[in-house]
């Protein structure tokens, strides 16, 4: 009764992964042309190029079109609740800090309902890679305004035009404490692959906000819109260690929109590095349970 879509032979776990290793038996059911295909592909390429074994990678999402991604990649996956990926991921990462933990989701999921976890996961500098497929719309619920929808945008929940100011994830993440902050575009695969590789290799919290057009519900921020506008920071000599410049460039929005690595710092340890409990003994999840007689005696002693 299982849903096996493709009959593929799986390489033995020991063999070095090939690009195919990350392909999953289920084909993505995104709309044809959806930007998320490209993000999935870039992630698969990045994992392959980094030589990470599929079973050592855990991809965690919330709920949304974009959040369906863990179902389409051959790694361990969790498809959690709307807005909660980062909290779940923090738990998973601390439980097994040997895993490479990657979160994927949408702008509504991450910046809307998930905003509080976003804020606090950043300040904790949890060693996660967070990929937000930012289509400036709620896709899966068929087209309502999102926290990144521009002012004036007409959506099903704002038929007369959105009156709210959007958030800007880039400056917000920089100020919020993320230690690797980048923006990519589905239309720039190679560039995106490099951003993702950098993010995964970065020790600490990485945000990669990706313009990933929703071809069905967002008629404003299309492929064409972005293709005309995006400019690579890497080609403009941006210094990703310059805080003020990172923020300033993050605000640029108009005829030219910068993408690339805005901000990176390596001087702050990640949360798992700061927790002495993790120092020795390997992943918590694999340690023997229970307490020793000596530990028990010490605890009981306190009661006497």
């Amino acid at each position, binding site marked *: 009764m299982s849903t096996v879509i493709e009959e593929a032979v799986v390489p033995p776990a020991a063999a070095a992964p090939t690009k195919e290793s990350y392909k999953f038996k289920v084909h993505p059911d995104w709309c044809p042309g959806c930007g998320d295909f490209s993000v999935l592909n870039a992630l698969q390429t990045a994992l392959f190029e980094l030589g990470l074994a599929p079973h050592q990678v855990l991809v965690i999402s919330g709920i949304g079109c974009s959040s369906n991604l863990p179902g389409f990649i051959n790694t361990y996956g969790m498809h959690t609740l709307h807005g909660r990926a980062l909290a779940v991921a923090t738990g998973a990462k601390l439980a*097994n800090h040997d895993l490479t933990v990657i979160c994927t989701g949408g702008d509504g999921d991450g910046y809307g309902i998930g905003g509080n*976890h976003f804020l606090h996961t950043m300040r904790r500098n949890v060693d996660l890679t967070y990929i937000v497929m930012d289509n400036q719309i709620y896709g899966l619920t068929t087209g309502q305004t999102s926290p990144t929808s521009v002012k004036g945008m007409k959506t099903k929940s704002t038929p007369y035009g959105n009156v709210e100011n959007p958030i800007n994830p880039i400056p917000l993440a920089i100020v919020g404490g993320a230690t690797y902050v980048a923006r990519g575009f589905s239309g720039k695969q190679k560039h995106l692959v490099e951003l993702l590789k950098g993010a995964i290799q970065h020790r600490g919290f990485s945000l990669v906000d990706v313009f990933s057009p929703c071809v069905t519900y967002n008629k404003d921020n299309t492929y064409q819109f972005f293709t005309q506008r995006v400019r690579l920071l890497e080609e403009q000599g941006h210094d990703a260690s310059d805080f003020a410049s990172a923020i300033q460039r993050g605000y640029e929005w108009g005829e030219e929109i910068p993408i690339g690595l805005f901000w990176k710092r390596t001087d702050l340890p990640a949360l798992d590095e700061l927790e002495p409990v993790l120092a020795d003994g390997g992943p918590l999840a694999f340690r023997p349970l*229970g307490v020793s007689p000596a530990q028990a005696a010490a605890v009981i002693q306190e009661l006497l």
Partner: protein
Amino acid sequence: MANIDFAIGIGGEAGQGIATPGNILARIFARRGLHLNAYNAYQSIIRGGHTFLTIRAGDHPVRSMGDRLDVLIPLNQDTMDRHLGRMDAGSRVVFDVDKIKPGAAPAEVRLCPLPVKQLTAGDKLAANTVAVAATLQMLGIEFEPLEASLTKQFERKGEAVVKQNVGFARAGYDYAATNFHAFPFRAPKLATPLGILTGNEALGMGGAAAGVKFYAAYPMSPSTGVLMWMARHARQLGIMVRQVEDEIGVMNMLVGAAHAGCRAMCATSGGGFALMTEAVGMAGMLETPLVCIDVQRAGPATGVPTKTEQGDLWQALGAGQGDYPRFIVAPTTQLDLFTTVPELFNLCDRFQCPGLVLSDLMLSEGTASVDPADLNFNVPIERGEIIFPNGNGGAANPFGGANDRAYLRYRLTPSGISPRAVPGVPGHIHVAATDEHDEDGTLISDEFTNPHKRQAMVEKRGRKLAAALALIPAPRLVGPETAQVTLVGWGSTEGVIREAVEKLAAEEGIVANQLAIKWLVPFHTEAVTRLLTRAQRVIIVENNYSGQFARYLRSETGFAAHGHIRKYDGEPFMPHHLVHAVKEQLAGATALSVPRHEILV
């Protein structure tokens, strides 16, 4: 009762430090082997207001704060004014005569004014010490344990301070010997020295015993004690303890940690639990075992944060949308909290589902004596069908370990339980999804939608607990098989009901027995129905307004009780409340008794 049994009340403002004398007394009593129960009535205020600690001790199990005080130690005038009038004949009131004026005392209450200024050469902080010393003297307890206790307390401050304080205590002790009447009994010294334990400490220790490696929480009274215990012991016991941004984050982190293979636990109170319910449902859907403790307090909403209630039963029963299996248990004593946690983890691991513990303020913040021998940390740990990379999970890897395609995380098995591989295991790659999914984890909420698969998955999860009931002890009647009245309670009221039953027999000649319900889901419908339909008159006792347990009991058994005793004023039942209520119900005066708390604490 023929046994020795006495209670001391200490009251004052928040911030006046009633905890220290309370702690000194409790430890001295417990070390002598006396059984003990302590309950602190306090307010949601950091300084000021009124705080009242009742410590009751005896040479037999002491299960509630009891009905009377033998000693009142008012640390301020307010306490004297509130409590003096309620003291019984033969009791003592020990107070600083320089600071506090007694009013008119009831007959035969002995006022024991201490000239504190004179005894301590004006050291104001010493009043509490002097009062404690005088109290111990009247109870016939030697001076040495107090000396030892003070020595330990002031050690850090140097020998001079120790000496000074021991001196104050000595002065109070001697003053009492000369000026006050000792009690007609002496607090005995029993063979086995006991320790003292709050419910929240018991929960923390239970978690440690169960092998919890991930504890997360957001502070919320009256559950914060568990967080504090965990934080204090985190490094020593190798537990990851996290304070999270909110309760939503807590439960979601738990799911992540538990999914990755840790035993994960959290504690909160009703309002925090309300925020967690969606993610508890996620654990149900992902089939992730974890344990969540709700330490109930008076609701709704913020309610009365420092007052007790059993008001979250229906919230626990209705947590999260849809149907999914989970355990709900309401332990009955502090020791029971300790032993229940590892048992619950074994059940949750075995049946791959969340487990909820319903404690309450009275139990969690209350203190009980405990025989260290009963604190067994060497408990069985059963993790069920789990697959670890290093094979330490107990379950063999059923698919040879190297075929992602063949592994079915949600395999439809007769038991409904499917071996779960944690991330990191080669050959078991899968996605765990909160959308309805197929055996291999693939979403069937989108293009693969199929009502038959959906039905099969609901039934798979639904049948998991079928085997669980047999692993859970059925509730048993305590007391005479045939009785005029059967008092039914759930969770923390077990102790006070037990005492009421004894009191009914001893003082009123009423034969009662008791049915204490601990496991709520799954519920021993058959056993409980059998017992209750045989009973002459069933009265349900619970600490809430709407009879949450009575309604739940009826939903499971159809049984409607003959009477109800409910209290929802924030304070726990006292034994006499129940005795009085039973009498009025036996007399036919009412079927619903709501005892009125006599003391305004």
